[in-house]
């Protein structure tokens, strides 16, 4: 599945919710279910300090594809991280570096990625892209 197809799949999943609370119910479930970062990787150098919630991000390159694991102390943040990882994992560094992650806006979660939101997610996406860019240039 291409990155674009993965985004469209998520948009379709969210299309069934016409109520905000149902949407968040789903995000919370994703946050509870998704396998997250290895505890040994929850180190300070992987910590992205937001004003509201904290995010840990570990990046890896395996067979030329980017691998991300992440965690947060807030479950909604965690759920959104799960969506981002689902879209970006196993993609070429170059694809990630140039990816337009429009699905977040399409499913109505743009506020969480706004740089002023200060929940660490905007910085996390930036870090994901930077690490991909680094992998391209190596």
């Amino acid at each position, binding site marked *: 599945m291409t990155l674009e197809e993965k985004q469209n799949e998520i948009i379709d999943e969210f299309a069934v919710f016409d109520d*905000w*609370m149902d949407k968040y119910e789903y995000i*919370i479930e994703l946050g509870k279910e998704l396998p997250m970062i290895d505890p040994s990787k929850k180190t300070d150098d992987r910590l992205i300090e937001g*004003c*509201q919630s904290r995010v840990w991000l570990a990046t890896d390159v395996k067979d030329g594809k980017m691998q991300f694991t992440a965690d947060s*102390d*807030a*479950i*909604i943040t965690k759920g959104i991280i799960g969506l981002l990882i689902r879209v970006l994992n196993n993609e070429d560094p170059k694809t990630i570096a140039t990816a337009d992650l429009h699905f977040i806006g399409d499913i109505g979660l743009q506020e969480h990625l706004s740089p002023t939101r200060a929940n660490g997610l905007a910085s996390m996406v930036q870090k994901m892209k930077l690490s991909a860019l680094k992998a391209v240039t190596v």
Partner: protein
Amino acid sequence: MNVQETMAAFDVEQIRSQFPALNQTVYGRQLVYFDNGATSQKPQIVIDAIDHYYSKDNSNIHRGVHYLSQLATQQYEDARGRIQKYINAPLSEEVLFTTGTTGGINLVAFSFGETLNEGDEIIISAMEHHSNIVPWQLLCERKKCVLKVIPINQKGELLLDAFDELLSPRTKMVAITHISNALGTINPIEEIIEKAHAVGAKVLIDGAQSVQHTTVDVQALNCDFYVFSGHKVFGPTGVGILYGKKELLDAMPPYQGGGDMIAKVTFEKTTYNELPHKFEAGTPNISGGIGLGKAIEFLEQLDMKAVQQYETELLNYAQAELLKIAGLQLIGTAAHKTSVVSFIVDGLHPFDVGTLLDKQGIAVRTGHHCTQPVMDFFKIPGTIRASFAFYNTKEEIDLFIKALKRSIEMLR
């Protein structure tokens, strides 16, 4: 008097009708605005005054010979006079327009701070907003002064015995919040001011959370400086007030240089304008000042005793309802509290709770409320804070409690 009776005497619906922003839906639900500690909504007379200023009277003040300039100057200075009377300042030149509480504290920390020497001591408290911590830290770095902190107890009350021990002839400034933004604690500032004066220290009161809840009489308090923000007292953003005793302000050097604050400028020597202009460099926030004057006019029409009683009833009702929720803990349980409820819920992150409340139309604040030392003291990352104004209602608290219960169910 129970809540219903006070409401009748107080006519909350009549008050609400003057705040257009309260009457709207968000995410398809009626807005419940409980973030008054961060900023308040504006009554129509404030909005109209700003609209009128920019539609008709817009002009630079103090210097113009023309009609509009004189009109704008008159309104701006009338606003100063109104605010002077409202806080009972003896002289209008003791009432300085600033950019807000933060601007006022920085002005005093810099300018009054210039008169301090190495080893002089400044006392603040453990419940201060960052705005009443960092300017003093900057001063301490600049002048090699010593910052001392009055500790708090588990209820979020100042330990006054510890304050007594911190006071000494070296104490030059005690800068303390009137009402804590994170905990709601009302501090015994009269006692603090008296004790500080007894050792010859000056006192700055951070009134950012006070003027909207209580009457402030700077002469009765006998404080040396009192600061507050326009936007938290139903006025516009970007404007605030610093009250300072004339003899202190006269002795202090200017904070910023520029237009309006000078008497005569030559390259050899510049002389400064008199108070209040000495501390008001540059074109001020004219519409902000006028708007703040209108907000004070609005407050004048209210019976602040009734306001306080009504807000206390809202607080008591909200706290009683919150405490029925399993695993909920109030942060800030001082005996004297204003209408601020900070709380945490076992195992839940405040950000998650706040996000779900938002989607149900409830506006609260989550996080550390710019008081990280308070959060460190309670060993928590932050709280969920509902802060009520006199335009809030018991029905809104019911909606909030219902939404909170649903949020907790979803997150557990």
